[in-house]
């Protein structure tokens, strides 16, 4: 479903990603781990289409389409979702209104009828129960005054509401206490299906204990230096990242 081929990315002339190859098939969940500064967030943002990153080589194909040629909103409408590591505050913009606009943009894209206010409320309240969010959220502004945990749960809520086929979660577990990690993982697990692919970027093994990844990759210095099953995550938890330096990088 998502194929990343030989992806090279620079920021202000400085190479960050140096040849990433990764394929996520429908139904799979891939975890990407790695130390700070390894390029994890860059990878997520390039998939979503942030234009401060310069793709110097390689390509990203989504369902046979060249993702790099598409605007961020076109990617979103095609079914690519990114959960932000630092969700953005939009003061004065009501979250219900924001989400309804997003959902209806998606529906319109799919040729479906737009939801009216009442249908939308029924729909979103049901999703909110899945991530245990209180209805009072609906009257707040987008991420305004939200705690770190509330912001992350709000990201997962948006994923559930927008129903993307490919979800990239950028450190959705960081800054969450253990209960919140469980809630987020639960929301994610319920959402998993044969049709959907996931790329879960994380610094810690913790969340992987709840979501059972199919593959684990280690990203370091802009390269995937090791790939394996979920046991790799446990190994990393135990030994850290430094032992991997000794190994030969997997050639791009």
């Amino acid at each position, binding site marked *: 479903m998502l194929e990343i081929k030989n992806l090279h990315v620079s920021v202000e002339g400085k190479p960050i990603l140096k040849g990433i190859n990764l394929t996520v098939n429908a139904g799979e969940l891939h975890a990407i781990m790695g130390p700070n500064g390894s390029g994890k967030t860059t990878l997520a943002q390039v998939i979503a289409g942030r234009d401060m990153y310069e793709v110097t080589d390689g390509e990203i194909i989504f369902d046979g389409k060249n993702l790099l040629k598409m605007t961020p*909103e076109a990617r979103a409408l095609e079914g690519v979702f*990114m959960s*932000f590591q630092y969700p*953005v*505050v939009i003061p*004065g*913009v009501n979250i219900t209104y924001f989400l309804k*606009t997003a959902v209806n943009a998606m529906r319109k894209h799919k040729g479906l009828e737009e939801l009216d206010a009442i249908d939308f409320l029924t729909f979103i309240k049901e999703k909110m129960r899945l991530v245990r969010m209180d209805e009072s959220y609906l009257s707040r502004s987008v991420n305004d005054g939200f705690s770190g945990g509330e912001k992350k749960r709000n990201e997962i809520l948006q994923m559930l509401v*927008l129903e993307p086929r490919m979800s990239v979660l950028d450190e959705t577990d960081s800054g969450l206490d253990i209960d919140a990690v469980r809630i987020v993982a639960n929301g994610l697990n319920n959402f998993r299906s044969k049709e959907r692919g996931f790329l879960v970027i994380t610094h810690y093994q913790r969340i992987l204990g709840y979501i059972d990844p199919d593959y684990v990759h280690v990203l370091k210095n802009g390269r995937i230096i090791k790939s394996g099953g979920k046991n790799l995550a446990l190994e990393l938890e135990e030994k850290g990242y430094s032992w991997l330096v000794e190994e030969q990088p997997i050639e791009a």
Partner: protein
Amino acid sequence: MNSDLQTIEKHISQEYKYGFVTDIAQETIPAGLDEQVVRLISAKKNEPEWMTRWRLKAYRNWIKMTEPTWAKVKYSPIDYQAISYYSAPIKDSKKLKSLDEVDPEILRTYEKLGIPLEEQKWLAGVAVDAVFDSVSVATTFKEQLNKHGVIFCPFSEAVQKHPELIKKYLGSVVPYTDNFFAALNSAVFSDGSFVYIPKGVRCPMELSTYFRINAANTGQFERTLIIADEGSYVSYLEGCTAPMRDENQLHAAVVELIAHKDATIKYSTVQNWYPGDPKTGKGGIFNFVTKRGICKGDNSKISWTQVETGSAITWKYPSVILKGDHSIGEFYSVALTNNYQQADTGTKMIHIGKNTKSTIISKGISAGYGQNTYRGSVKIMKGAENARNYSQCDSLLIGDKCGAHTFPYIDVRNPTARMEHEASTSTIGEDQLFYSNQRGISTEDAISMIVNGFCKEVFKELPMEFAVEAQKLMEVSLEGSVG
């Protein structure tokens, strides 16, 4: 980031859609201003001698005055002798008895502007006075209002039919000595709306005036006078548009509001005069307006709400004199400057009575090369025990070539006063747009969402149909504006 800004820029440059000209026979007097012209205008309107004298006094006062230069706006000097001070559709020489007598071309104009004058087509709850260049062409729902004793008519008609009210109140809030533009207006004003709400009457519908400038090289000088007698209530709206022309056109209006004991006046404006060419800044309306109300009696209330999206230059400070004890003054404003527009706007709240309260909420939005200034003054006079003021001035910048400026003046002469002032400046961030895009929301929708969120506190003060109108207007005015 640049590509985002370019997209925004594209959206924000939608064209002004009210820029058409109505082709109609009009009588326009030659350009220039002297005592003869003032007499001529007065004669055209068949005015009584006292009215002519008042105009002449204003004129003689005006020629001694100089144009104010303290506002933070730049424009080339106005040649007051190059402007025609009176223009009217020719048919109007006789009084119109019904809409059938209004030139169909004018009716079509208002239809095109979304203001049908046929009563059955208009929202049931709004009575409209339509002012076309210098004259009022139609007033709707007159009979229904008469039943309640409400007077709502063109200003020139009020001079004939209600001279006692005009003599008593005209210039009582904005004297012709007040400022340069008010003096000019007092000398040459052509028409406008007059409203009187009798004691204890709650006006059964919204009253509305729709101003349209059509003729070229003509100034528009209308005068609005609203009197709310004891215990009455009125909500009044005004809307304005003008054709696209390369020359600047002067609009210098005066609005006076008088609220007696326990009366409330709510005055809303949606101003969308032609803002000038978006690329060159050429043309557009110079909007130099004096608006002031007096809370004369105890427990009276005056509330100004304005949405200013048009005009090349806006210079206006709707103010309230809080004379009655426990009186309330409010000012809610959204001013948007895009492309080469400039706005210097704000309010004055003058607290004289005891326990008076004022609220100022100002939202300035600048885009393109727009320059937006909030200028406000809160005065607490010596006898104003326990006066309270809350001011909030927020600026939103879109792009990096525009400017926002805030000049709040505070003058407190009574130690019991309580003043609060809050101000903020924000921008529409590239990260906010990206976040919205990532959720499938287009940049255009994201901007209008953020702008409307920013203006929410003001829009909720507008009557409902107009709040929707104002939101749409913001979208149109912003289209293509971020640079």
